[in-house]
């Protein structure tokens, strides 16, 4: 098989064009989207959390979740790091305090209700929706159970009912959306005895956080976690030590999830629109090449036939000419001989006449 340059280019461009299409198709970025005005947020002041787990108990009650094996009063569970699971929308964990080992750090973890949720971006049945109130709500009536949202969530929050054979659901904090709609605060916020959780409009919560940091610079590090992480979240955190020490990832960046996939998504319709043109073009080029090859072949064959004919014709002509020449030669010879004979006869006749007289 000869790999012509054209064929190689055809393959390579068909395979590699998307490299060029990759990141340019991003017309909108979250910078131009300000989020729902007046949506709510919660500030979790990690320095105030004592790990009493009353918020966990309140969440369990409000959402009518099954009671766990160990009661909420049992604080030995804090010996292990826990994550959210199908029966616990929120957990409190204890962490080492490197600066002050006598005062361990406690931090509550739950869905952060991102401004541009990765779960909503990832879900292929649109089962997640960011509401104007700020809650990211989940619709179990359409969920297929693909668990891509669990892959997408950078905070590893969504949990799944793996032991449910026919009606498994994703389980995560709802931000007490029904309660918020009634003008109440989320169950955990209401229950917290140390006021480590504050509920209000996001802009007010941000002001509150900035104010606390400004007023107590030695108590807090100068960063509000969730202000810009993953494009911003509705649950905001302030802490005394690094957030990493509180079990939170500091390397998530500020790019919201929808922007991460916008490039790839943008290239899709270009492939649909242009590949058929490219492929038909390659096909047409090949067809034309085949046609030209066939035509050249036909001409070559025709010429060969014509040459053969011409050769034969020439052979015949020269043969005929030769035959003609030979015939002429013979004729000449015959004439010569006849003349000779005639002359000889004439000569003989003359000689006879002369002898007669």
């Amino acid at each position, binding site marked *: *098989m000869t*790999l012509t340059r054209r064929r190689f280019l*055809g*393959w*390579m461009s*068909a*395979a*590699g064009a*998307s*490299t060029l299409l*990759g*990141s340019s198709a991003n017309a909108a970025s979250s910078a131009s989207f300000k989020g729902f005005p007046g949506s709510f947020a919660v500030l979790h002041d990690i320095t105030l959390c004592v790990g009493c787990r009353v918020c966990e108990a309140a969440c369990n009650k409000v959402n009518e979740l099954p009671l766990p094996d160990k009661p909420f009063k049992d604080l030995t569970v804090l010996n292990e790091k826990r994550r959210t*699971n199908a029966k616990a929308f929120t957990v409190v964990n204890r962490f080492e305090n490197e600066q002050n080992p006598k005062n361990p750090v406690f931090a509550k973890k739950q869905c952060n209700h991102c401004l541009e949720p990765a779960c*909503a971006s*990832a*879900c*292929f*049945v*649109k*089962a997640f929706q960011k509401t104007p109130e700020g809650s990211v709500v989940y619709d179990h009536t*359409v*969920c*297929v*159970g*693909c*668990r*891509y949202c*669990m*892959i*997408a969530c*950078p905070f*590893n929050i*969504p949990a*799944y*009912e*793996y*032991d*449910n*054979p*026919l009606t*498994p659901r994703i389980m995560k904090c709802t931000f007490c959306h029904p309660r918020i709609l009634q003008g109440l605060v989320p169950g955990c916020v209401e229950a917290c005895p140390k006021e480590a959780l504050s509920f209000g409009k996001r802009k007010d919560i941000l002001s509150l956080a900035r104010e606390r940091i400004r007023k107590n610079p030695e108590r807090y590090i100068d960063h509000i976690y969730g202000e810009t992480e993953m494009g911003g979240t509705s649950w905001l955190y302030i802490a005394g030590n690094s957030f990493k020490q509180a079990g939170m*990832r500091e*390397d*998530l*960046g500020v790019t919201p999830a*929808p922007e*991460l996939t916008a*490039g*790839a*998504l943008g*290239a*899709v319709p270009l492939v649909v629109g242009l*590949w*058929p043109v490219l*492929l*038909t073009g*390659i*096909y047409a080029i*090949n067809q034309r*090449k085949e046609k030209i090859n066939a035509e050249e072949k036909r001409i070559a064959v025709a010429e060969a036939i014509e040459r053969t004919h011409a050769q034969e014709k020439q052979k015949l002509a020269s043969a005929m000419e030769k035959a003609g020449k030979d015939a002429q030669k013979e004729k000449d010879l015959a004439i010569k001989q006849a003349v000779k004979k005639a002359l000889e006869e004439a000569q003989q006749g003359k000689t006879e006449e002369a002898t007669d007289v």
Partner: protein
Amino acid sequence: MSEKTISVNKFLTPFNLVAGIILLIGAVITVLRFTQGLAGVTNLSDSNPWGIWIGFDLLCGVALAAGGFVTSAAVYIFGMKKYHSAVRPAILTGFLGYALVVFALHYDVGRPWRLPYPFIVQPGTTSLLFEVGACVALYLTVLFIEFTPAAMEWLGLKKARNIVVRLTLLLTIFGVVLSTLHQSSLGALFLIAPSKLHPLWYSTYLPVYFFVSSIIAGLSMVIFESTLSHHYFKDKMDNTHLTENTDVTLGFGKAASLVLAGYFSIKMVGIAASDNWHYLSTGYGLWFLLELLGFVALPCFMYAVGVRDRNVTLIRWTSVVAILGVVLNRFNVSLIAFNWHLPSSERYFPHWMEIMTSVFIVTIGILVFRFIVTKMPILYAHPDYKETH
């Protein structure tokens, strides 16, 4: 002995016995899956929501079924007629591959009867999984239609067969379009989780990597499948198949060598673009180098030597290495380099029942392949239908 006993004995070959046992175990696991949920048969967890049913059955299954669009594009769009005998086996492998992927998905998702929901209830258009689903569904339809001429020739449906054959070029173009989309989108699925995938594997070029490596997988699978078919189904092959085989092996080996070289280059570009060179000296870095050098650069070189020396055997063995390379890459992206931040106690390893389910699904594929190849004109041209291309 009676005729019935003889046919039964012929049926009970060692392969059939093993396959039968696998089918039985698979049936039991199926029952367990739908009575005890995923917890009863898998090691999936909240931190590891995707296991080998996604990493192998979906990601590898789709990549290894890419021979269909690659071969039909080569023959019908690029006009390489000498590979024509490879088209039907490649389309069959492709069709069965995708059908089994959809079958496997019914085990993995929580409510498989809701799989049509994204198209008929509520489309999640921002999701790359939506894109994968739509393209896989459409492409499975295209593959099925491309497969039907063989079945129709077997059933004697001449008129229908001729109508479908006239659509070949259009179907081939659709096949390439849809394959480009879903092969690349499977890679794009992981774009949304940069914090979970190791930097040596995470790249904005993931969709391009998956698409290019799917071509490698497709070319290599055609070589691999034809090797096996020549060994086990030689009696079913007509003269064209037998004589064209060397050309197919050499030609596809050459193409695979080139594409592997291109793939290697763009992988280097990816590392450079994110300045990730320092990761190469870590544990994961060594593993990455193993994938890149042992399963991309090496088969590239092996294919090249095989083509240059016309060493068909070398090319055949290389196809195994190349295929394993694509499988390794898919495993790395979805299982091994994924969640690399988690402590080893929280990492995932498949449950034996998950592995058995995958074996069960592949076995079904082999059995159906064998049935179709022995009964229908895949490895030979039906005597009633002259090859028009």
